[in-house]
């Protein structure tokens, strides 16, 4: 017999913070809440189908799709905005001790798969096995995407530091 599902409230409380962080990394703080609402409403509708093996990866998969939908909708919208502006807003990274606001803004300029992998790993706080589930790829490929993303970010930051 399958293990019974935890009460939805417990599931929501356990995953709300990493999901919101991940969505901020994907769509910026201004739109993260909308995506968050859509993600958990969809999760609640589909809750019976949660297999319980990787609940966080499961909800992150939904969140990633909502973020992709969001980017597509915005690309079709009347006034497509340039990619990183909201990351640079003062609300971009509140709370943490002296975070570098440019860093996540640079993440938003990575190729989509690297961006999602970095977001899942460091904002969503997922293990590589879970990143793999959420990206629907092998664990090895998930590691590679994160690693390549990191290298690219480091290169970019070396440049800006030298320029400054």
């Amino acid at each position, binding site marked *: 017999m399958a293990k019974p*599902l935890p009460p939805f*409230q417990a599931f929501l409380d356990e995953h*709300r913070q990493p999901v919101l962080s991940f969505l901020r990394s994907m769509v910026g703080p201004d739109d993260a809440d909308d995506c968050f609402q859509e993600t958990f409403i969809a999760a609640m509708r589909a809750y019976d189908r949660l297999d319980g093996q990787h609940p966080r990866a499961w909800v992150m998969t939904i969140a990633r799709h909502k973020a992709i939908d969001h980017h597509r909708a915005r690309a079709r919208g009347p006034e497509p905005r340039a990619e990183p502006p909201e990351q640079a807003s003062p609300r971009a*990274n509140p709370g943490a001790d002296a975070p570098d*606001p440019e860093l*996540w803004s640079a993440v938003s300029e990575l190729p989509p798969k690297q961006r999602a992998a970095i977001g899942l790993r460091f904002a969503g706080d997922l293990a590589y096995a879970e990143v793999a589930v959420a990206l629907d790829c092998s664990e090895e490929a998930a590691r590679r995407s994160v690693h390549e993303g990191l290298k690219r970010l480091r290169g970019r930051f070396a440049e800006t530091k030298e320029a400054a």
Partner: protein
Amino acid sequence: MSETNEKGLARLERALRAGAGAGEDEAAAAAARLVERADAAGLADVAYATVDTPLGSMLLAGTDRGLVRVGLPRETFDDVLEEISARVSPRLVELPRRVDEARREVEQYFEGSRREFELPLDWRLITGSFRCNVLEVLTKVPFGEAITYAEAAERAGSPRAHRAAGSACGSNPIPLVIPCHRVVRTGGEMGGYGGGVEMKRYLLKHEGWLD
């Protein structure tokens, strides 16, 4: 060379983690909005809240049909919520507004301004026709009175089933509101209570049946 590379990557990872955080407060606020939205979309099958009483915190859970489960102070609420999740629906959220009327009536009961509950009940956690009959009988035992297990069995239509009547009381998912505390042993002994005998004694004193 590669060692400094590794160090650089590790520093970058730390900076990413430090800069990523949506605060816990913001996440909690987003989750609270989500629960309201889920309710508006008809997805919140069961809503619950806690209420403070002189005996400790009680849990009240309701569906669209009515109050489905009351958790007594002695129970572990996480276990109660898991039971509801498994037996009613896992779409269970904390939404005090939906059980406001039940909270108000429980508060009034303990303040002494209410003797009868006027809440719609959801009987789906009560299984078996005899159990159902016994609990139905109990809803008609008024504040300030008590009956014996034998009387409960008799009124439920099986005069000799006083043990089964006791077990029906013990399995009552909506204690206090379905007043299983108003059933005592022949001879006036308390008998058991899911919330503990002390709670039963408190309730019967509160209702004036015990001095």
